[in-house]
C-alpha cells in the first residue's frame, strides 16, 4: 500500500510537471476563485465595522414638552430600559439642556438675546436613547408612540443616522451580491478548467493508461494520480492565495483604520483568529469542486 501510494504520488507530480502551463492556468483560476471569496469576507468584516461604528454613534433624542414632570420622564426611562433593543438611556434635565444650549451658543449674541427675551427655560427634559442595532430604532420609535408618553413628547430626532446605516447596508449588499455572482462565475470557470485539465491529462497519458490497464493496474492506481494532482493544485492555489492575501490585508488595515478612526480595522485579527476555519473550509471546498470535476472528466474520457 505504501509503495503504491508513493508511486501514485510520483505519477501525480509527473502529470503536474508534464502539463506545467496547464497546471499554471488551473491554479490561477482556483486562486482567482479563492481571492474573490476572501475579498467578500474582507468586505463583510469592513461593512460590519462600518455599521458598528455608525451604530455606536447613532442615538435617538427624545424631546419632552417643557411642562413635563420629572416623574413622567423617569417612567419613560424605565419603560425604555425594559425594551431588549435599548442599550442605554441617558437623561438630560431641562436645566442641563438649557446650560448646554447656552454653552454651545455663548458667542452668538442674537441667540442669547432671544433666549433672554423669553425670560424662562424653553427646553424640556430630553432622553438620549442608544440601541443595540440600527434596525432596532424603528421598534424604539414605535414604542414611544405609547399613549402614556405620546402627548408628552415634543419631537424625536433620528432620521439622518437611519439613512446612513441604510445607505451602508444597501451599498454593501449590492457589492456582496456582485461578489457572490463573481465567485459563482469563477467557480464555474474553475470547474470547466479543472475538467479540461483532467481531460487533457487523460489524453496525454492515454498510452500509459492503456498499458497500465493491460498489465493489470487497479482502477484506483490509474485514477488516483488525477485526484492527487487536483489536491496538489488546490493546495498550491490556497498557498498562493495566503501569500497574496496577508500582505494585502496588512497594507489595507491602516487605510481602513484611518477611515474608521481606530488603530485597526480588525481585518488581520479576524483572519488570524478564524484562519484555520476559513482557509480549512476554503481548501475543502476547492478540493471537493476539483474532485467533482475530475470525476466528471474521468467518467467521460477515462475507460478503466
Amino acid at each position: 500500500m505504501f509503495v503504491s501510494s508513493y508511486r501514485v504520488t510520483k505519477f501525480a507530480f509527473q502529470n503536474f510537471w508534464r502539463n506545467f502551463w496547464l497546471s499554471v492556468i488551473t491554479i490561477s483560476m482556483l486562486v482567482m476563485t479563492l481571492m474573490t471569496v476572501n475579498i467578500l469576507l474582507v468586505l463583510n468584516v469592513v461593512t460590519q465595522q462600518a455599521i458598528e461604528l455608525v451604530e455606536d454613534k447613532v442615538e435617538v433624542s427624545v424631546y419632552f414638552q417643557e411642562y413635563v414632570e420629572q416623574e413622567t420622564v423617569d417612567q419613560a426611562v424605565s419603560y425604555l430600559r425594559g425594551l431588549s433593543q435599548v442599550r442605554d438611556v441617558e437623561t438630560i434635565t431641562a436645566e442641563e439642556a438649557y446650560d448646554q444650549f447656552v454653552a454651545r451658543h455663548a458667542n452668538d449674541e442674537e441667540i442669547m438675546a432671544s433666549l433672554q427675551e423669553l425670560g424662562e427655560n424653553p427646553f424640556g427634559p430630553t432622553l438620549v436613547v442608544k440601541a443595540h442595532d440600527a434596525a432596532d430604532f424603528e421598534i424604539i420609535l414605535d414604542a414611544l408612540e405609547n399613549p402614556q408618553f405620546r402627548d408628552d413628547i415634543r419631537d424625536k430626532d433620528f432620521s439622518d443616522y437611519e439613512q446612513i446605516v441604510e445607505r451602508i447596508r444597501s451599498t454593501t449588499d449590492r457589492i456582496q451580491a456582485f461578489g457572490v455572482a463573481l465567485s459563482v462565475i469563477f467557480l464555474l470557470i474553475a470547474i470547466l478548467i479543472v475538467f479540461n485539465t483532467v481531460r487533457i491529462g487523460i489524453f496525454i497519458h492515454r498510452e500509459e493508461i492503456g498499458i497500465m490497464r493491460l498489465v493489470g493496474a487497479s482502477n484506483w492506481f490509474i485514477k488516483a494520480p488525477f485526484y492527487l494532482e487536483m489536491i496538489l493544485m488546490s493546495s498550491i492555489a490556497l498557498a498562493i492565495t495566503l501569500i497574496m492575501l496577508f500582505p494585502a490585508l496588512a497594507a489595507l488595515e491602516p487605510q481602513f483604520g484611518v477611515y474608521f478612526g481606530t488603530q485597526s480595522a480588525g481585518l488581520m485579527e479576524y483572519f488570524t483568529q478564524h484562519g484555520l476555519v476559513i482557509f480549512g473550509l476554503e481548501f475543502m471546498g476547492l478540493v471537493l469542486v476539483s474532485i467533482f470535476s475530475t470525476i466528471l472528466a474521468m467518467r467521460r474520457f477515462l475507460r478503466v
Partner: protein
Amino acid sequence: MIRFKNVSKIYPPNVVGVEGISLHIRPGEFVSIVGKSGTGKSTLAKLLFAEERPTRGSIEIGGWDITNIHDRDVPLLRRQIGVVFQDFKLLPMKTVYENIAFALQVAGERPHRIREVVPAVLKIVNLEPMIDRYPRQLSGGEQQRVAIGRALVHSPKVLVADEPTGNLDTVTTREIIDLLKKINEFGTTVALVTHDREVVNALKKRVITLEDGKISSDIEEGRYKL
C-alpha cells in the same frame, strides 16, 4: 485452462464479432488462432483478457468464470494473462528495464521484488545488454521481446499474442516464435493469433481456424488452410 461455451460477441447495431464459439484449451497448450482479416481473431483474443465481454455464452479461465467479470476484478485477471500486440505498446520515454518494471510497479510490487524479477525476465527474452536503451533505439524484434518480457513479469498462466509478428521480417518472426515456444515449454499456455501461414505451418501445433466469426476447423498439429 480456457473454456469457451457457445460464445458470441455482437457489436451494436448488429455486427458479428464471433458467433457460437466453443473450445477448450488445455493447460500448457500452444494454440494458433488463424483466419483472414475480420474473421474475429482479435475479438476472440480480447474476450480472453476481458477487453470485451461476450454477448452470449460463457468463458472460463483456470476455473474462473469471467463471462460477466466485474470491472474491479479485471486487473487481477490481467495479472494472470500476459498480452502481446503487433504494435508492441511500449512507453517511448522509458528504457527497456523501466518498461518491464512498469508492469510490476503499477501492480504494487515492492522494489526488491522488481529488482529480482526484471533481470530474470530480461534473461529469458535475451535483452540483458539493452536494459538502458529506449524503444526508439531498438529493432522491431527487440521491441517485441521487451513487450513479451513485460507480459511475463507476473508469471502468467496464459500468454495471448495478438499478431505479434505482424510488423516483423521473416528472421525476426522466427526469433519471436522461438521465444514463444520457449515460454510455452516453461508451462505457460500460449494463444497465438496470426494470419502468417509460414509461422503456423512451422509450429506444428494445434490450429483453430476462424471463418466469419465461427470456428471452421480445430486440428491438433494443424496447418494454415485458408
